[in-house]
């Protein structure tokens, strides 16, 4: 019944977290950031290995489930967290406030939260996982406490996040009130045709959706994202844009397809609007941006819109289309995760005389001062614009295909049109890097080795994905079989 060994990765990671926290506190020194970061990366890798060895099944009174879907998402979450932490290695050491050992520890606890999210098999587990991740995220956003922008970002994120959590909890309590259980399995059993479309449940569903849509910053629950992305330190922004987003999308997918599968007609409509709105806003609002982190915020809103196309297709009545949609979604998020981290690695390397710079114009003439970084950025931007044969093209292709097969032709048309618009601002960055004359402020600082590693790893993946797309597709296929088979 308890079967707690199934949850070994989370348990091990939590124990490691406590040990690392102790190791950070006890020496009473100020230079613990680097060793603790290394220890956390080690713990994340260890957890990744344990995840790969995890078996199938439900555990801990059915509140925790381990299946291929959870494992796929967890591996990506851990990769995202580890890479985001690697991004911070050099960046944080330039600032005394950022170079505190709590930073990696918070990322570790956020990772536990995300792992719980994707493994949740009960509304309560879902909520606690989400809160664990969010709370760590609020603190991380405000981590640079002497920066007004960072503090403001943290506070804004916290207040709005609390509202979203409130909506989520209200929805969950309505579900409990109407069905009498919070377990996903029993919800799925109870929500058969006769229960399905009651007004109360539909309302509850929308509240739950709203709470989760906030976490993935989908329109109209996206308002926090540009401010927080801009205000938070760059490595924190990189983290926000990558792993938590993937975890929340995975969670949303599981919640909607498993316990609320019978209500697909309802959530399908809502998600259609959310997806279309996100794509449109992401494409148009980014055009006028001067701050590149803000631009990436809108870009990530747009990307969530594209990913949600897959989830809309998963609302279809045809099981083949359903699994196609979920697969496209997972595939999209996996590629998005790596592309985004790569792009943020370039952003983190944008420093002049030790101080971070964030305007697009600061990239001017990068091709002349640092051609390697310019080329990686070109790869990421073109990939996000969906230029073949880069990875980003395939992910878009798959979601559009899922949409067309599900009969959501208009959504695909909106997607294609907005991606053309979005290509404009991605290409603009490339133009600034390659064709504009460098500004008066001089060249950017030399990039540190840790960022080069991240850029090269994600860049090679993005550029060469077409050569061997098989393994990722196969993994996504296996993950889909676990929840939308």
């Amino acid at each position, binding site marked *: 019944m308890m079967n707690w060994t199934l949850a070994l990765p989370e348990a091990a990671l939590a124990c490691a977290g406590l040990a690392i926290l102790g190791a950070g506190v006890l020496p009473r020194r100020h230079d613990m950031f680097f060793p603790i970061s290394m220890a956390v990366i080690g713990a994340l890798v260890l957890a990744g290995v344990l995840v790969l060895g995890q078996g199938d099944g439900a555990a801990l009174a059915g509140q925790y489930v381990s299946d291929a879907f959870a494992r796929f998402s967890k591996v990506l979450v851990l990769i995202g967290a580890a890479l985001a932490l690697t991004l911070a290695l050099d960046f944080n050491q330039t600032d005394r406030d950022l170079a505190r050992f709590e930073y990696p520890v918070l990322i570790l606890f956020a990772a536990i939260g995300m792992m719980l999210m994707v493994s949740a098999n009960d509304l309560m587990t879902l909520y606690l996982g989400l809160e664990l991740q969010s709370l760590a995220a609020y603190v991380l956003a405000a981590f640079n406490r002497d920066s007004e922008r960072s503090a403001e970002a943290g506070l804004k994120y916290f207040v709005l996040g609390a509202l979203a959590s409130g909506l989520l909890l209200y929805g969950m309590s309505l579900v409990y009130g109407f069905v009498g259980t919070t377990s996903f399995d029993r919800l799925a059993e109870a929500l058969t045709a006769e229960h399905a479309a009651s007004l109360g449940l539909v309302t509850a569903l929308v509240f739950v959706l*709203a709470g989760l849509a906030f976490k993935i910053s989908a329109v109209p629950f996206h308002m926090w994202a540009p401010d927080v992305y801009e205000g938070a330190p760059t490595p924190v922004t990189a983290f926000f844009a990558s792993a938590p987003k993937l975890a929340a999308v995975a969670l949303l997918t599981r919640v909607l397809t498993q316990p609320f599968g019978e209500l697909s007609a309802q959530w399908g409509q809502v998600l259609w609007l959310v997806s279309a709105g996100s794509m449109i806003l992401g494409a148009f609002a980014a055009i006028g941006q001067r701050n590149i982190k803000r631009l990436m915020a809108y870009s990530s809103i747009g990307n969530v819109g594209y990913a949600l196309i897959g989830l809309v297709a998963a609302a279809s009545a045809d099981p083949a289309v359903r699994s196609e949609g979920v697969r496209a979604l997972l595939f999209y998020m996996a590629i998005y995760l790596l592309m985004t981290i790569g792009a943020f690695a370039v952003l983190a390397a944008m420093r002049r005389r030790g101080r971070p710079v964030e305007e697009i114009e600061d990239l001017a003439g990068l091709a002349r001062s640092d051609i390697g970084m310019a080329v990686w950025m070109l790869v990421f931007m073109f990939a996000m614009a969906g230029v073949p044969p880069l990875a980003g093209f395939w992910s878009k292709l798959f979601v559009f295909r899922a949409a067309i097969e599900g009969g959501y032709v208009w959504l695909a048309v909106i997607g294609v049109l907005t991606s053309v618009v979005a290509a404009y601002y991605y290409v603009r960055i490339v133009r600034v890097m390659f064709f504009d004359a460098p500004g008066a402020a001089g060249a950017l600082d030399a990039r540190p080795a840790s960022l080069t590693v991240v850029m090269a790893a994600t860049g090679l993946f993005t550029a060469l994905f077409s050569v061997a797309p098989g393994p990722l597709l196969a993994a996504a296929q296996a993950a889909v079989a676990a929840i939308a088979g």
Partner: protein
Amino acid sequence: MYVGAVFFPLLGACISGFLGRWIGPIAARWSTVVCMALAAACGVPAFFDVAFGHNPATVPIAAWIATGGLEVSWALRYDTLSAVMVGMVTFVSFLIHLYSVGYMAHDPTQPRFFAYLSLFTFMMLMLVTADNLVQLFFGWEGVGLASYLLIGYWYERESANAAAIKAFVVNRVGDLFFMLGVALTFWTFGSLEFTAIFGAVDQHLGDRFLGVPALELIAVLLFLGACGKSAQIGLHTWLPDAMEGPTPVSALIHAATMVTAGVFLVARMSPLFEYAPTALAIVTVVGAATAFFAATVGCVQNDIKRVIAYSTCSQLGYMFFAAGVGAYQAAIFHLFTHAFFKALLFLGAGSVIHAMSDEQDIRKMGGIWTRVPVTYAVMWVGSLALAGIPIFAGYYSKDAILEAAFASHSATGMLAFLLGLVAAFLTAFYSWRLLILVFHGAPRADEHVMAHVHESPLVMLVPLLLLAAGAVLTGYLFAPFFIGHAWEEFWAGSIHNAPHNHILHDMHEVPAWVPLAPTVAGFTGIALAYVLYMFAPGVPERLAATFRGFYLFLLNKWYFDELYDAIFVRPALAIARIAFRVGDQRIIDGVPNGAAALAVDAARGAVRIQTGRVASYAFTMIIGLVLFVSLLYLGTTR
């Protein structure tokens, strides 16, 4: 051999692009030239082997994507159609690489240039040897990328950047339709392999999509995609601007190869187009309109490369309406001959520009024919071929196209015939206008420039002479196979003609005046050019002054750019500005409206925790929530 023809250019691109810094510019450029020579040495025999030895083949490379429902593999498809393209592309590309060695000799970043050029060649070969639509699309985007890079090669120039972006954006519009076409093909046929699609056309004749016959819709979408790449009317605006790139690039990409990809696509998809009569009619009309439109504009342009660019646009129009009336073979034949003489003209123009110290305005040239005799001679050959004067290559292919248009006995075909005839006249006129203004008359350049006029080095002249030979001979030598009595054997089914399509037979049985008409039109055009520019040089100016409106209309390219600016560019900018205002201005430029207390905060420079804004964010969330709930309630109660 088959694999080598495609991959040697990639090898060259890699050597020059990645190792260029270490091995130096000389080694880099010669390595690409050697690789291209090897590719040509593979590609040309491959052409003869496949087309004349009747030895079509498909070379599998690797399985690429294999996942539920979509299976795509890398494979090189060598049938006659591909082989013609491979032979032509490798040969012309080799000559242009060679020519570039001389032309780009003073450029500081040669490895980059040669890497791009070779990369382009590889992508083009990938496109023409594609075995399925995905691989074709890969090449299609690849040539677009290479073209973007090469147009913007001189990135110090603002105009080159603008042209590169314009080409990219306009091509993306075309690609959008192309992608929709591919998606719809997959939807209809459940496969993207050519063999599977062509085999299944019969079963899908009656399919409908959104109430429209699916085959028609696919054909129209693919054609719109082709329009973007091949600069057909409406999406042609990028091509003249693309002349910002180096001249060899214009010759290779924007004359001989990439822009013909659209024609190739239509020919490749002929089994589908044959059953889409409406789409074919659209192709005919658009092609004919382009041929006519571009020829009129070409008559008044003053930039030597732009004149030739509009001429390219016009000739592409010929190819399309040939395909539109069902004479795909004639279209490909014209594509084949055109590659030789248009590359020749561009390289000749490059030689002129080289001689004139980088001057491109033909009003500032003149009187140099004795100083550059070889260039002058090859320009004559190229122009004769372009104008369709007998025994030159263009004569065979252009005549065949016009005959086919006449023989189609349809309204659109007749329209194409008439417009084509007028365009043939205009073609001859602007070609000789160019020749006379550039080479004859009194020198209009300053003495400094005139003193430096010189013939190009041998490494540039050899490609010119070889292409000139091609421009003379290819028509006469290959006409019997491409469109003559042996065509069925030659094409071996690689281009499909439906049972009801007898155009290749009918085009030989038109009234006797039809084959003569284009030649007569050509000679008339030449004569008119001589009269106006050689013997009565004042007349053109007076004409321009008398018909000022008409002249400006032509000079401004029928106001297409201005129209697009008004319809697309400005509204898009306006939308962006609105989105910027609504989405951001309050954050960047100020504080929330009405929040006086917060304004005081900001003024004090205090911690700007703008509670007003958080509240509005929260409101947005709640409003969104209420909207969704209401929407579902309305949906449920209805």
